[in-house]
């Protein structure tokens, strides 16, 4: 099937950090339209997605999720294996629904990896929590663009975003762009973003106890990205995605 949607441009906010040259090469083959997920009222669904290795190094995953009243959707993402990788998630929350997301972006060399979310609190009493951790080396670019929209009558909304990036090299780039659009007045919307480097004082402290720098870095980075998966309740599933993430971390050094 040929994609008839025009190629996005940088003027489109959701694509401003994208690798559009890479995208142009495969645009005709990108599946049209998102994968749709509906979580029925009162139910709980958990899904883990490791960005697949795809054609010409470009990998696009696009989800459109509806979480019905009182339902919970937990989504855990790992973006690492692509020259240009993009995961976009559009979520619609009904009354009392909950969206939990944890994402890790692990890139090196010239990779461009991004997670783009749009969470729509269209009804009252819904909650959402998004945690993204990026570790970037070389000339990699890792981006999180997270939009939270709260409709006028969606009172008692509680939405939070925590975005942290760790740059292993000064040549790597992290982008964090929270975007809040709130029309209701009785809501809690929290967001925090930091970009940093490995704590040098901690590295020396660990060396002073006998840890070689490679192991000290590994311990700190493991702990850093663990935040993204701590909300995954199924132990076996968490171990599976964490093992993939740790293998990817080893490849960054």
């Amino acid at each position, binding site marked *: 099937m040929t994609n008839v949607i025009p190629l996005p441009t940088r003027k489109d906010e959701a694509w401003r950090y994208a690798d559009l040259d890479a995208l142009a090469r495969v645009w005709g083959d990108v599946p049209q339209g998102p994968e749709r997920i509906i979580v029925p009222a009162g139910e709980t669904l958990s899904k883990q997605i490791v960005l697949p290795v795809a054609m010409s190094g470009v990998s696009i995953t696009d989800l459109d999720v509806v979480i019905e009243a009182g339902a919970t959707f937990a989504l855990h993402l790992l973006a690492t294996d692509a020259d240009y990788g993009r995961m976009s998630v559009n979520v619609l929350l009904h009354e009392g629904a909950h969206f939990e997301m944890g994402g890790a972006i692990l890139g090196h060399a010239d990779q461009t990896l991004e997670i783009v979310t749009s969470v729509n609190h269209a009804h009252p009493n819904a909650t959402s929590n998004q945690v993204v951790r990026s570790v970037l080396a070389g000339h990699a670019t890792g981006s999180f663009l997270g939009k939270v929209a709260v409709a006028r009558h969606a009172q008692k909304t509680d939405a939070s975003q925590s975005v942290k990036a760790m740059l292993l090299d000064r040549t790597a780039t992290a982008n964090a762009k929270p975007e809040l659009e709130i029309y209701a007045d009785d809501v809690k919307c929290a967001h925090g973003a930091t970009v940093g480097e490995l704590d*040098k004082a901690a590295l020396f*402290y660990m060396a002073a106890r*006998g840890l070689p720098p490679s192991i000290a870095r590994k*311990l700190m980075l493991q702990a850093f990205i663990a935040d993204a998966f701590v909300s995954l309740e199924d132990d076996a599933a968490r171990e599976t995605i964490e093992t993939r993430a740790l293998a990817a971390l080893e490849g960054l050094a």
Partner: protein
Amino acid sequence: MLKIENLHAQVGETSILKGLSLTINAGEIHAIMGPNGAGKSTLAYTLGGRPGYDVTEGSATFDGQDLLALEPHERAAAGLFLGFQYPVEIPGVSNLQFLRESLNSQRRARGEEPLSGAEFIRLAKEKAGLLKMDMDMLKRPVNVGFSGGEKKRNEMVQMGIIDPKLALLDETDSGLDIDALRIVGEGINSIMRKPDKAVLLITHYQRLLDLVKPDFVHVLAGGRIVRSGGAELALELEEQGYEAVA
């Protein structure tokens, strides 16, 4: 065990140690006292190999090895323990995991077998008990949410587990209440007061030295040792102050 000769060190462009010499033999406990800014912590960090602390002249040999040529983790594996004045927090990394990895890295570097999980837990329980620290605290991330006193006690638990030859303790007594000070003092004695070990205590106060009796006391001022004596020198300093004595 440790022989420091004419050590000069600078931090950035500022010279701090200006010809410091000191010899510590096995079985000895030394105390270094001195006014703020004398270079006490710089001495500890320089011997520990902290990046940014550059030796410009002089030497330090540890058990016949050129200490200054070793990387910080190699100095630890050689048997040097640095007790921090401000122990660092490491979010997300548990004390037990940190210490087991540290100890086993040291053991591997020395060609020894790493400890199994069970052997390590037994050792950690014993040393935590010695310092009256709850095992639950050892399961928590390193120093995160610990009070100042708990951090210092944790340093001593770490010292007990790692079992070094030479401990450089940088103001381990600061921030401790009276009970914690006694526990830490007893911990230092039971872990380190042995014929094949040595300690260098960096302190401002006599009260730690009442508990851990030094064989030698040195006054550090202006980046050099300006006076050395026995335990009585610390008492003299307490009474008369640095200016009169040094």
